[in-house]
């Protein structure tokens, strides 16, 4: 285990930024927290969560896929993919680390999405254990341990120091480069923090939320539940939940005409929108109830069915905090999850 005193954090960040673009969570105005490209002296936020997850680094909200030049009846495809730059995302919480595993299941499954894979290969995740999980947190429901956040390098921040453990080869390589700004340490402080985190986790209001009732092959059990109507009644279909969600990955592909040609880009889309499934031949999900149901059935049943039981929710609580009508996956699970969630 390596240690870097907090008073030395600027030197640490500068060292990381020497070899790769570094992103750290930063406090912005009006209580917003976002990852920002590190510049000398920048202060890291102590907030529990960034408003948007680390998903953006690997699956950005919009990205150009290719360009076309057209002339008369001819088309030329311009493949302008290039090797991604090496980058480090610092301070990713356990839930968001796990979300990348969920996204991997989609984008790295054959046929592999080369845009995503490129960024995954060049990105290093330095995680951060959660010393102050909050009332909207329920990562434990999905078997995630906020005191063991994983990533490429597992990081703990105490009152006076960062502690690092490399988890993957990529993590080892980065940590080796930081020898000059870190020192060897025992695990005492980290073990104490882990105990402390477990105590906080035990007091969380959602600590008893169970996902056991959901999972693979439970479509018939939940699809026709009369509860969907009540649950979805107030849903505005704004899609906020999907945009702040670290595991939502549905996308749209569209063309944009520029002066020089056509850009084909990909952007996030949402199953909460009526346009998502609308065809000239008809609309298979006519009401918001059906669209609302799709989102939660996908996270709690369909995705686990296709991925060895892995849920497509990591309990980060962003949708709980951001939904304008205070509807969320927790309420859905409590309502449909039967006696386990009384």
């Amino acid at each position, binding site marked *: 285990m390596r240690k870097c005193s907090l008073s030395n954090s600027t030197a640490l960040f500068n060292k990381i930024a020497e070899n790769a673009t570094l992103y750290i969570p930063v406090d912005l105005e009006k209580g917003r927290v976002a990852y920002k490209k590190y510049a000398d002296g920048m202060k890291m936020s102590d907030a529990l969560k960034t408003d948007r997850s680390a998903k953006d680094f690997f699956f950005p909200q919009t990205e150009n896929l290719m360009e*076309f030049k057209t002339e008369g009846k001819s088309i030329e495809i311009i493949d302008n993919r290039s090797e991604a730059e090496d980058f480090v995302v610092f301070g990713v919480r356990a839930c968001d680390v796990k979300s990348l595993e969920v996204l991997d299941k989609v984008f790295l499954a054959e046929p592999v999405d080369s845009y995503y894979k490129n960024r995954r290969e060049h990105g290093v995740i330095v995680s951060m254990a959660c010393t102050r999980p909050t009332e909207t947190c329920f990562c434990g429901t999905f078997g995630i341990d906020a005191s063991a956040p994983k990533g490429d390098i597992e990081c703990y921040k105490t009152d006076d120091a960062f502690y690092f453990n490399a988890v993957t080869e990529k993590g080892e390589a980065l940590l080796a480069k930081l020898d000059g700004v870190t020192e060897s340490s025992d695990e005492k402080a980290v073990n104490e923090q882990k105990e402390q985190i477990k105590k906080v986790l035990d007091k969380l209001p959602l600590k008893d939320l169970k996902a056991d009732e959901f999972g693979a092959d439970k479509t018939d059990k939940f699809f026709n539940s009369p509860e969907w109507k009540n649950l979805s009644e107030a849903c505005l279909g704004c899609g906020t939940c999907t945009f702040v969600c670290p595991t939502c990955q549905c*996308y749209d592909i569209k063309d944009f005409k520029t002066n020089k040609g056509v850009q084909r880009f990909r952007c996030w889309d949402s199953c909460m929108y009526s346009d998502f499934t609308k065809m000239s031949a008809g609309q298979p999900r006519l009401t918001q109830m059906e669209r609302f149901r799709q989102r939660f059935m996908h996270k709690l049943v369909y995705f686990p069915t296709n991925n060895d039981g892995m849920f497509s929710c990591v309990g980060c609580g962003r949708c709980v905090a951001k939904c304008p009508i205070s509807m969320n996956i927790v309420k859905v699970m409590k309502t449909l999850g039967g006696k386990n969630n009384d």
Partner: protein
Amino acid sequence: MTNVKEPLIPTVCVITDIRQDTPDVKTFRVLTLDGKKPFIHKPGQCAMLSMPGVGEALFSITSSPTNTEYVEFSIKKCGCVTSWLHAAEVGQQITVRGPYGNGFPVETEFKGQDMLFIAGGIGLAPVRSVINYVRDNRANYGKVDIVYGSRSKDDLVFYKEIIDEWKNDPTVNVHLTIDREQEGWDGHVGFVPNFVKEVAEKFDEDKKAKTTAVLCGPPIMIKFTLQGLGEIGFNKEQIYTTLELRMKCGIGKCGRCNVGSKYVCKDGPVFRMDQLDALPDEY
């Protein structure tokens, strides 16, 4: 990076022939720029066609894999990309990627079976691929019946091929129908579901048992045809259909065509009726 294959990046191809099949359906013949077939496919599979700046959309491949020269798409004018295609001329380049989806099990479950093909309107487009595949591998399949209907005689897609080739094939029985009486039409008049029942009712029990039905058309036609086939003793394991949902990626990632735990673009578009029944009713 650029030498890594990216499934979303298409190939430039060219339209080499356009045939006006009905007032709103055209069939496009497509080749690579060096005059080859853009891909090898299975009957029932689909491909993404696009015109940069207009959009990309998924279409069923209507030509049979046994056609070694070209692939064809029969496209009804109904939206943005299709309207653009209908205005296109021979020599126009388009982009193609695919083929996508599972296709019909022509080399497994269909082998040795009597085939009953049922289609309504543009629904014949994907079915034509299987019909011609079966005709070109005739020894592998039993008797073939084709029941096809449209609103009017003018809306029967592939009419020339049906009359010149399928009707003249002694190993194939073609049963055509149109919805309403029309001058110059002395064939059957009535809706496809009733006509299918009429045709299949005459099958003896032995033939019914060894028949596989392939069904494609508007949802309402599928619904009543299934009902009719059920009444005369067909079970759901004998009936296959192909679905159409909105798709963007074609490779099971963009999420649009997700129905239950299946992605229509990847796990479909061909489903056996009992498999389809196991999915939520959202297609």
